[in-house]
């Protein structure tokens, strides 16, 4: 069966640390960072390798800072 592998790029400086994306991720791939960005917000980061490229996090992000990639493996 064809499998898919995804990954995301977060525009860290534009992330406002709202955390709305975290629960939206079915594979628990993302977490908030300990570090803050230039505006002082904890930003979202990709911490596991489980992303399927489902786009959920990007669709629900109010600031539209997530780009999602997906390939068939």
């Amino acid at each position, binding site marked *: 069966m064809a499998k898919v*592998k*995804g*990954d995301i*790029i977060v525009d860290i400086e*534009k992330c*406002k*640390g*709202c*955390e*709305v994306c*975290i*629960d*939206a991720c079915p594979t628990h791939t993302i977490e908030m960072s300990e570090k803050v960005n230039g505006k002082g*917000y904890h930003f979202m980061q990709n911490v596991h390798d489980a992303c399927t*490229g489902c*786009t*959920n996090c*990007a*669709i*629900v*992000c*109010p*600031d*539209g*800072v*997530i*780009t*999602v*990639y*997906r*390939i068939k*493996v």
Partner: protein
Amino acid sequence: MSDTITKEQIFKPENIVYKKTDLMTDNVLSYCPGCGHGTTHRILMEVIDEMGLQSETIGIAPVGCSVLAYDFMNVDMQQAAHGRAPALATAIKRLLPNKTVFSYQGDGDLAAIGTAETIHACNRGENFTTIFINNGIYGMTGGQMAPTTLEGMKSSTSPYGREWHAMGHPLKMTELVARLPGTYYVTRQAVHTPAAVRKAKKAIRKAIELQQQKVGMTFVEVVSNCNSGWKMTPVNANKWMVENMFPFYPLGDIKVDGKLVKEV
């Protein structure tokens, strides 16, 4: 083929499955973290983008937090005096009937100071699309009570909770306009989860498509959080919204093809 996929293999333009539409400018949104205004702007612009209507669309920004919507939406925009967006949208649509026209308004704008403009534009069956962000509060000015504030809900001007003997009942503007003959499609949506966002986007797409068929008013309410005004974290505000706003403002279509599909 090897099982390990490198970042270089994935991060190629042809593998992009989602990115912010070019119809949203690169300006940083002026909204608080987690506010539904941003999500709603984006899905509205995605619809305009996917329908190829960028140069054919004119939007009206309101007074309220979304007063700067013209800085974020990469289409022609005008900004109306408080509550007057439906009047301005009426003028623009009548003068340029082939343009796609939308008004984008909060509940203080649409359901308080602009009640007359809203009701009459809906009753006249003006052929534009209204996007109505209902967060139950005046966000921009510091969280004052709005007509849409729930019974018992605390705001800066109802610190002990809204009490109807003194402050009146919450107003279901969307149910009200659904009863007017000039509205053709009336629906209530939300943008707090991926599934809700996908549904809300479909509803906006339907509204814009119907506008092209010149059917009359198409009206999409989006129940949203004002986490700053509610004094909650964005995640808690969304939870509170599901538990408290949705029972009173239930999601779903209210009027389809000019016919009520729900008792109002």
